[in-house]
C-alpha cells in the first residue's frame, strides 16, 4: 500500500506574533491570524476523477473546493531549545457557499518547523534568539483534522442551523486525515518572529497495490 495525496486548498495568512518569553523547554510565541488579509482558496481546483473513490451512495463525494476567509486563528508556538518549532493551532474558516451565511469550519493542527536546517541545533537556536534568521523562509509540516457542523434540529435557534447541503459539500474534510506542507516566513528583529504562513492542505489517501 502506498500513500497518495491530493491538494485541497491553500491558506495564505499574515500572522501577528507575540513573544511570551523563555519557558523551561524553550520559547513561547503566540501567533494570531490576521483575518483581514488571510485567504483560503482552492484555486486552481485540482481536476480529475478523484471523487470516484468516495462512497457513491452519499452526497458527500463532491469536492468543489474551499474558498473563503479566516474568521479567527491562533497558533500557540513553542520554539524548543533543540531548534524545533512546534506549532499547535486552530483556525476557523468561513467557507463561501450559496447560502447567505458562510459555512464555518474549524481546522485543528499540530506540526513542526525545523530551525536547525541540518546545522548544530543548539547553535541554531541561539542564532534564532539573536534574530539572525530574519527574512528566511522555513518549511513547515502539519497534521490536520477538521470539525464542521452536520445537520441541524428543527428546534434549534438559527445560529446553530447549518444547511445539510453545505455539510455534504465539505464532509470529506471530517472523514479523512489531512496534512499541510508549507512555509513559515520569519521577520526581522529579535527572535526572527514568524510573520506569514503559507500552507497547502492535502488529503491523504491510501492506494491498494494494483490500483493506480
Amino acid at each position: 500500500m502506498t500513500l497518495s495525496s491530493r491538494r485541497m486548498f491553500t491558506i495564505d495568512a499574515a500572522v501577528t506574533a507575540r513573544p511570551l518569553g523563555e519557558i523551561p523547554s524553550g520559547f513561547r510565541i503566540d501567533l494570531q491570524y490576521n483575518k483581514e488579509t488571510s485567504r483560503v482558496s482552492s484555486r486552481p481546483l485540482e481536476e480529475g476523477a478523484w471523487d470516484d473513490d468516495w462512497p457513491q451512495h452519499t452526497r458527500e463525494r463532491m469536492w468543489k473546493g474551499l474558498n473563503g476567509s479566516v474568521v479567527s486563528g491562533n497558533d500557540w508556538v513553542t520554539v524548543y531549545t533543540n531548534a524545533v518549532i512546534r506549532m499547535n493551532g486552530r483556525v476557523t474558516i468561513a467557507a463561501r457557499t450559496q447560502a447567505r451565511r458562510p459555512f464555518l469550519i474549524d481546522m485543528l493542527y499540530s506540526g513542526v518547523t525545523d530551525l536547525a536546517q541540518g546545522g548544530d541545533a543548539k547553535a541554531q537556536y541561539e542564532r534564532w534568539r539573536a534574530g539572525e534568521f530574519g527574512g528566511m523562509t522555513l518549511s513547515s509540516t502539519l497534521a490536520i483534522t477538521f470539525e464542521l457542523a452536520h445537520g441541524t434540529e428543527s428546534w434549534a435557534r438559527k445560529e446553530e442551523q447549518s444547511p445539510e447541503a453545505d455539510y455534504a459539500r465539505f464532509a470529506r474534510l471530517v472523514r479523512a486525515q489531512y496534512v499541510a506542507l508549507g512555509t513559515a516566513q520569519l521577520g526581522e528583529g529579535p527572535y526572527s518572529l514568524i510573520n506569514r504562513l503559507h500552507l497547502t492542505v492535502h488529503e491523504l489517501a491510501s492506494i491498494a497495490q494494483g490500483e493506480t
Partner: protein
Amino acid sequence: MTRMTHLVDTRHILDMTQPHPAIPPAPRRDQLLDAALLYVFSYDVEAQLDRAHLGFVPGGVRINIEAVPNRSCAYHVLRERTIGGLGVGAISGKLSSGGDRIFMREDDVEMSEVHMTIHTDDGAEIDVEYESVSWLGPDGFRRFVSGRGKYGSDLRPSEWPLTTAPRFRTQSPTYAWLMNYQGVGFGRVQLVNSEVRRITYDVYVLT
C-alpha cells in the same frame, strides 16, 4: 484532609534550593493524601459578542468565542498586595488575548478549551491553558440551543458554576513559581439571553 485557605504558609514548598522533602510512607493506607488549595488570583473575561457558531457536531454544538482584549482583567479578590503566606506579589493585570472553544454536549454538560495570556501590571506575560467543565442543568442543552426559555437577561443574568484546572508558563522570574503548581479554578459563567457574556474565576494552586 483537604483545606482551602489563602493564608497558609507554604514557603517551604517553594524553596527550590533545598532537596525535595522526603515523605515517609504511611504504614497503611487508611486516610486520604493531604492536599491544600492556596488562593492566587481571580480574573474576569468579557466575551466578544461576535462569536463563531459552527453548529451541530457529533455529540453537541460547537461555539468559538474570544475575550475582549484589555477589558478582561486579573486581580486579587481581596485586593491584597501579596499572596498570603507565599511572600510573593499578587497577580494583577489585563488579559491581552484569550480564546474559548466551547462544546455544549447533548448530555447537558459544557466543555471548554481555553488559551489566554495575562499581561501583568509590571509587564510580565503569563500564558494560561486549561479545559473547563460545567453542568448546564436539567435539559440545559436543549434550552440553550433552542433559544427558548433563555437563560438570563440584562437585568438579571443567569450564572452557571464551572470548574477548571489551569497550568501556567512564564518567562518572568517574579511569577516563575506559578509553573511549579497545578492550578484549579472555580468559576461562574454569566449568561444574558443564553449568550456567554462574562466568565469569572477564582484560581487556586494545589500545594
